[in-house]
């Protein structure tokens, strides 16, 4: 599982305060804790509170890179904030994210290529988020075609299937499994299949259980990446166990310990 640790986000109070006071302590701690917990990437999102999003993004990335070598996911919907983040990047990097419109894909894929970055592409476009599998797969096709056209390495593309919160639209999550399955077969190598896991269970009473259950149900269908709470040990263990059950790793009695090392 490619786990993208979500905690360095200005939506959280400790990160918001850190940005405001330019106090790196909390950010450093979160970078180390998430790295130790096994994060493949550290998501960096300045949130909405920062007055200077560009300055905040650069500062957060510099603090993290000063602390750990863990790859970074630059999380912003604003192109200039992403670009500013890339201008100071030293660690391996993933851009989170672009929509599936042709002109957006063009712009972001070319930017990613310039920085040898991976790229999360959402299955949504200016018409919004499709409600059915067919329309979502049309966007996936468009993403893959664009990648092939621009000779963008497909193994560096992460398709985010835009997982709805369970308490917003209960019909949607079940469609995701079929979509993961279809993306897996679209090319060789196929793009990764990603979801925003915490978003899915946000505002519910059984947040962690819902996230954990969705993840373990998704893995057999080909879900292999998620923006998630890597500090939730039960969630990380469940993901690894699901992968062991699907024969993606060699079993051993201490497989959990081995993975955490």
């Amino acid at each position, binding site marked *: 599982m490619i786990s993208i640790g979500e905690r360095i986000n200005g939506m959280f109070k400790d990160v918001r305060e850190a940005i405001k006071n330019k106090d790196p302590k909390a950010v450093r701690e979160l970078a180390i804790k998430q790295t130790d917990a096994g994060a493949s990437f550290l998501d960096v999102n300045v949130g909405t509170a920062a007055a200077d999003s560009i300055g905040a993004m650069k500062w957060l990335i510099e603090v993290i890179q000063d602390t750990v070598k863990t790859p970074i996911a630059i999380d912003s919907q604003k192109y200039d904030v992403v670009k500013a983040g890339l201008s100071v990047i030293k660690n391996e990097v993933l851009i989170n994210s672009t929509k599936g419109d042709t002109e957006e894909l063009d712009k972001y894929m070319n930017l990613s290529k310039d920085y040898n970055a991976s790229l999360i592409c959402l299955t949504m476009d200016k018409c919004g988020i499709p409600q059915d599998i067919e329309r979502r797969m049309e966007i996936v096709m468009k993403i893959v075609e664009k990648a092939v056209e621009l000779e963008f390495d497909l193994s560096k593309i992460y398709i985010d299937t835009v997982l709805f919160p369970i308490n917003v639209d209960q019909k949607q999550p079940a469609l995701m499994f079929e979509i993961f399955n279809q993306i897996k077969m679209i090319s060789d190598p196929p793009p990764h299949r990603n979801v925003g896991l915490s978003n899915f269970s946000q505002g519910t009473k059984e947040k962690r259980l819902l996230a954990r259950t969705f993840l373990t149900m998704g893995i057999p269908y080909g879900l292999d990446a998620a923006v998630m709470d890597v500090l939730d040990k039960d969630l990380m263990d469940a993901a690894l166990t699901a992968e062991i059950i699907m024969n993606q*790793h*060699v079993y*051993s*009695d201490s497989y959990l*310990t081995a993975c955490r*090392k």
Partner: protein
Amino acid sequence: MEIPNVADKWTGGVNEITLGATRDKGGTREKTVTIGGAKSIPFMDFEGNPGHKPVVAMDVYDVPPEDWPETLSKPFADVMNDPAKWAKKCVEQYGADMICLKLDGIHPDKGDKSAEDAVKTVKSILAAVSVPLIIWGCEHDEKDNEVMPKVSQAAKGENCLMGIVSQNSYKTLTATCLADGHCIITMAPVDINIGKQVNILVSEMDFPLNRIVMFQSTGALGYGLEYTYSIQERERLAALTGDRMMSMPVICDVGHEAWRAKEAKSDDNEVPQWGPREERGPLWEAITAVSLLQSGVDIIRMNHPKAVAAVKKCINRLY
């Protein structure tokens, strides 16, 4: 029509290990051997770096083996009572890349020789040859735990490959190798899950992963070769897909296992239809070795000079 490129892309690889230490590294070896480093499955170098060539370690015993057929003992008849001379012959005449000293004589049922005897033998071999050494205990846990630490201490700084440790007995030798700067062989009896487990257990003692060589126990041609093969193949695929606990180079015990087969050792008059044993025995050993090479092996323990020559020729042609 364009032929599609079906080459796989691998994200991981086999650890690289250098065995033996020269004077400037604290040992007395004149040659070191580097193994591992593969980033593709064997003989598929169009998919990635095939890594270092597999090497042949020839077995030398501390006491003359009693069960060797004449075909096998004949080339060593003049040296079998002197492990140092035996080792020298293997290196100088038969081109052994390494020597594997098998301390059978310390086994309680095979002579029960003392740790002091073992130390003496190790020192004499280190003085006689300049290639790196594998030192293999008698596989009796209690006796090995008594003798191997002393042997390890005697060879301190030489960066030997010491074996073996298993799921049930690994602490003593792991701690010893860590202290004396040796590499270690982790053993599992044809069981990939236990193989991984032993690697984890050893690494939990802070033993570096890049100083471990894996041993799955070996089945000879006709005697379980396919079990060893499929496990080693799976280990190699796990290494190539980035499983750190399965990324160790692999050692096989081909000589000992191949020569236990009746097809290798039977007399000509017992089975005339099988052809002359002078050819049959070495062939049995060579075919076992070459077959296992395809699964991903880095060190092959071997016995007969003719088989060694055939296998080395094959390796040199294929790599």
